[in-house]
């Protein structure tokens, strides 16, 4: 089961990747999937179609049609697991991110998650032995819901990326206990909760393990094959996107800009020692590293692997040699040299535009600068 938030974003390549992830979820036998705002990026119909094709159930307890107030997807789902009836509820933050992340934002509305669960539980609880709540809200809010609403056995929290190596227990034996689970993000972990249910539907005991899906875990051979095939299609999509993006930029800025990127060879005329330091550095080989992975068509990658990507007079809109992270990536356009906007000494913030936690998790300014230092 999945707590939602599997879709990447709205560009063509992101959509292709997201729907591929959904296909793989189907292949791997996901049974029930919560709906979170990013998953609505391509519209309700696309999401529903993908779930149907991949044979998993969608649940969305607090997502409604604005016009009718009716649920968009099933507000709860019941699955029979070895004779035990398991009921699933799923909530997301009220109206959070819907407007910016959802194709059908104008026709959808999310209600208060706690109120939705309170309203649905009396109907669901008598039909099932165990209630699982997907809560795509902060873990603090998940805990608050479990504290205040009796009848939730398990809560899978999502949205803030925590990894609960051990479930958080909320409540008491007399008032009813809930276990709060969270398995991080980006598919880096999978949580496994083994629990024993009595004849009367009471959870007697449980065991929990959080598995890191790192290089020590062997790939599913069929999925690995599908990924390799998909990468070929993805590269084509990314190349098309890069061309369209470049054309869009050229159209959006019809007049030449005053400031220009000049290329590292121009800087080298006066700053030869700095140039010599740079030309052997990883920055100088940043485009080659993309080529090595056949990612040179990816706009997402190019913005941090060349100089001035898609900017006026930047890569690829100029004859200047900008196919790497060169002087002007950090110091600003060459024609700014000597002016007040020229960045003589770039600060850490300049680096973290690209060396962010996702792309460069080990980045440390002092350590990295030591490898690059030049005058």
């Amino acid at each position, binding site marked *: 089961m999945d707590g*939602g938030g599997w879709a990447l974003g709205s560009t063509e390549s992101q959509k292709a990747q997201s729907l591929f*992830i959904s296909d793989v979820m189907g292949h791997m036998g996901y049974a029930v999937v919560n709906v979170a705002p990013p998953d609505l990026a391509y519209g309700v119909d696309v999401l529903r179609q993908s779930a149907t094709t991949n044979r998993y159930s969608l649940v969305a307890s607090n997502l409604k049609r604005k016009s009718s107030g009716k649920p968009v997807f099933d507000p709860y789902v019941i699955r029979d697991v070895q004779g*035990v009836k398991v009921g699933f509820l799923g909530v997301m933050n009220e109206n959070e991110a819907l407007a910016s992340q959802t194709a059908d934002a104008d026709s959808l509305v999310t209600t208060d998650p706690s109120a939705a669960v309170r309203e649905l539980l009396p109907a669901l609880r008598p039909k099932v032995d165990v209630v699982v709540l997907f809560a795509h809200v902060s873990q603090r809010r998940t805990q608050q819901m479990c504290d205040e609403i009796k009848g939730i056995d398990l809560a899978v929290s999502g949205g803030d990326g925590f990894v609960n190596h051990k479930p958080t227990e909320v409540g008491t034996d007399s008032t009813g206990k809930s276990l709060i689970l969270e398995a991080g993000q980006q598919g880096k972990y999978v949580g496994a909760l*083994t629990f024993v249910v009595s004849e009367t539907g009471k959870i007697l005991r449980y065991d929990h393990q959080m598995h890191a899906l790192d290089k020590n875990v062997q790939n599913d051979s069929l999925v690995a094959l599908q990924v390799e095939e998909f990468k070929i299609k993805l590269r084509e999509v990314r190349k098309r996107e890069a061309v369209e993006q470049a054309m869009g930029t050229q159209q959006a800025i019809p007049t030449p800009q005053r400031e220009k990127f000049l290329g590292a060879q121009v800087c080298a005329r006066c700053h030869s020692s700095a140039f010599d330091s740079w030309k052997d550095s990883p920055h100088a080989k940043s485009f080659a590293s993309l080529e090595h*992975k056949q990612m040179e068509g990816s706009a997402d990658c190019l913005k941090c692997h060349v100089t001035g990507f898609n900017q006026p007079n930047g890569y690829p809109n100029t004859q200047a040699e900008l196919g790497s992270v060169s002087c002007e990536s950090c110091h600003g356009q060459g024609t700014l040299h000597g002016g007040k906007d020229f960045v003589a000494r770039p600060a850490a913030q300049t680096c973290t535009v690209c060396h962010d936690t996702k792309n460069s998790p080990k980045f440390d300014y002092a350590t990295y600068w030591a490898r690059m230092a030049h005058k």
Partner: protein
Amino acid sequence: MTPVKGSSVLQKRLLAAALLVTVLFACGQPKVVAPKRAPETEIVLLYQSDVKAEIEECG
């Protein structure tokens, strides 16, 4: 069974059908007995969240 005065064949058939239904109802329908659940059932739930990630990293 007392013949119903002036009854047609259709009425007699309807009466017979009604009696049959009544008898069946009185005897009760065959019951579907749910298989008894084991005293303890072990379930494994595998879960994830926010799995979104670029399929391929830049370099």
